[in-house]
Each structure stands twice: as C-alpha cells, then as structure tokens.
C-alpha cells in the first residue's frame, strides 16, 4: 500500500488547544458553518459513497507506479548517435516533469505551513521558506527560460553557459 503522507512535513496541530479567551458573546461563525456543512454536504455525500461502495463489491483493481530505467545522458552519447539522443531526451523530459512536481510539493508545504501558523508564519515557517526558495532557485537556474520548445540539448547548453560564467567570475 502507498505510504501515508509525510507527518513531519505537515505536522498536526497540538491536541491540547489553549483555552479560548473570547471577548465577545457572539458564537464563532466558523463552528456554525462547519456544522452546517457537515450535515448538509458531508453526511449525504458519505452515505452515498457508502452505498456506491457496496455496489462495487470486493473486486478491486490496482494501478502501479511506473519506474523507468536510467539510460545514458546526453553528455555520455557519441556524436551523431541519434538513438542515444532520443533516449536521453525522453529521460530529460521525465526528469523535468518530476522536478516540476517537486517544486509543487514544496509550494504545498509552504502553503500548509502558512495556513497553520496564521499571521506568525514569517518566523515560524523559516524551514519551509528556505526549502522552497532553494528548490525554486535551483529549478529556475536549470529549467527556467528554456522556452516552449525546451529540450535536453538546450538545457545542456544553458548549463554550459552557467559553468562558463562561473569560471569567468573566478
């Protein structure tokens, strides 16, 4: 079975919440809205789903996560070996998609942290902010500005350019 979500990245709020120091006698509208939502939307939908699940019975089908083998990259290909180029290009595209998803996960963590902390997220979420900044900077330096027709070759040229600039700086 797939693992549950990473409990460290999305910590749950403390179970012993402090006593509320309510200044007004007005009931919390959020509590009211959640109760209304539960009875009007959540319960009917869950019962419907229960009925539907009974229809399905016990025959369950599974789907798996596809793992691809690593192939030689563009730098390890002989010149003129177009088959090697094609395989390297496909691998680069898969890696590009994976990296996009990584950045999205970092964004989600930051958003969840901000939601949890409320107004004090600036000092409490430093770890998430740092992680997100690092990953997005790395993504931008590797894949940014490649354009709509970005390919492994263009990415390699960009990397070469970057290395040349770094060498010039020293």
């Amino acid at each position, binding site marked *: 079975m797939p693992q549950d979500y990473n409990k460290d990245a999305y910590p749950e709020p403390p179970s012993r919440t402090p006593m509320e120091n309510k200044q007004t006698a007005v009931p919390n509208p959020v509590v009211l809205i959640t109760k209304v939502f539960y009875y009007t939307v959540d319960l009917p939908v869950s019962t419907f789903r229960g009925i539907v699940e009974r229809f399905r019975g016990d025959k369950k*089908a599974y789907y798996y*996560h596809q793992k691809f083998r690593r192939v030689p990259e563009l730098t390890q290909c002989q010149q003129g070996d177009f088959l090697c180029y094609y395989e390297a290009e496909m691998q680069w595209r898969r890696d590009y998609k994976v990296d996009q998803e990584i950045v999205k996960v970092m964004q989600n963590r930051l958003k969840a942290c901000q939601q949890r902390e409320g107004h004090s997220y600036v000092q409490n979420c430093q770890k998430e902010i740092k992680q997100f900044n690092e990953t997005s900077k790395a993504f931008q330096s590797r894949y940014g500005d490649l354009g709509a027709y970005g390919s492994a070759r263009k990415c390699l040229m960009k990397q070469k350019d970057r290395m040349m600039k770094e060498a010039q700086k020293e």
Partner: protein
Amino acid sequence: MVGMSIFRSAAAFTARLNPLKRTSQSSNLLSRAVARSEQVVVRHGSHGKRMFMIQPSSFYDRRFLKLLKFYVLLTGIPVAVFVTSVNVFIGDCELAETPEDYEPEHWEYYKHPITRWIARYVYDSPVKDYEKMMALIQMETEKAEMRKMQNEVRQHMREKGDGPWFQIPTLDKDLIDNSLKSTPDN
C-alpha cells in the same frame, strides 16, 4: 345566373359607396366583399386596456435552442449514463506497490477504468510507441549516412577525375576498324 351576379355586384357597389347605411339585411347575403374596417367596434372583454405587444419574432431563436438541446442531449445523456454507471459499479483503481517479480501490463498504470480500457484496446503500449520512434530514427540515420557517403564519394571522384560515376562507357578499342585510315593513300 347572370341576373344574380348583376344584383350581387350592385349590392357590393352600393355597400362600398355608403358602408354606414345598410339598406337591408339581405344585402349582406348578396355582397361578399364588404369593407367593414371602419365599422369595427372595439369591445374590451376585460377591464383594462389590452395592448398588442409588437415584438420581433422569437420563433427562430427558440427553434435553434430546441434543436441544440435535442442534438446535444441525444448523445449526451447516454454518455453521461454510461460514465456514471462505470464510476458507480466499477469505480477507480487503488494505488498499490508493485509486487516483486511482477511486471505490470502497460494499462495497469492508469487509475480510471475507462482510461485503462482505452490504453488496453485502443492505444499501442508506450513501449511499442517508443520502439516505433526509435525505428524511424534508425532508418533516418541510415539514410543520412548513406547520403553523406554518397556525396563524399562523388566529390572525390569529381576531383580526381576518374571514378566509375564519371566515366562514359565507350566501345572497346579493339573493335574499331582501322582499315579505312590505316594507309595514307586511302
């Protein structure tokens, strides 16, 4: 018959001349075409003033919308029923770890049952597509190599001046009959 038509036309003529003055009720039977518009009495059957709202015709618009609704729902409803029944009775698949020594078929990487069906019966497997693309690339590289070699060989032959491609076949010199020019006095 002719006399009757004369009476009828006379009654019509008199009715047209003086429509307000009805000579007799029998003239109504004779005259068919009588201008009655000036004599119309507006009778309100209700209490208020009913107006005839003059609007442009909405017939064409309503007809278009009816037809649109009909043709969209003609296939829309069966498709919706089908998809709903698939989702209710078959349902999505669950994510599971790939068991050891088991290579899942290419359609077992998708979640929704309709996507799985399409991947299984309609599309080629992605491995096959990959291999097809690689086969095309291989053929094109071979063609490119052949053309390159051909060009190089042609260039060499042209430069050097000899080479099978730049030779014009001529007859064998032993076949030439030199008897015509072999002696100076011919």
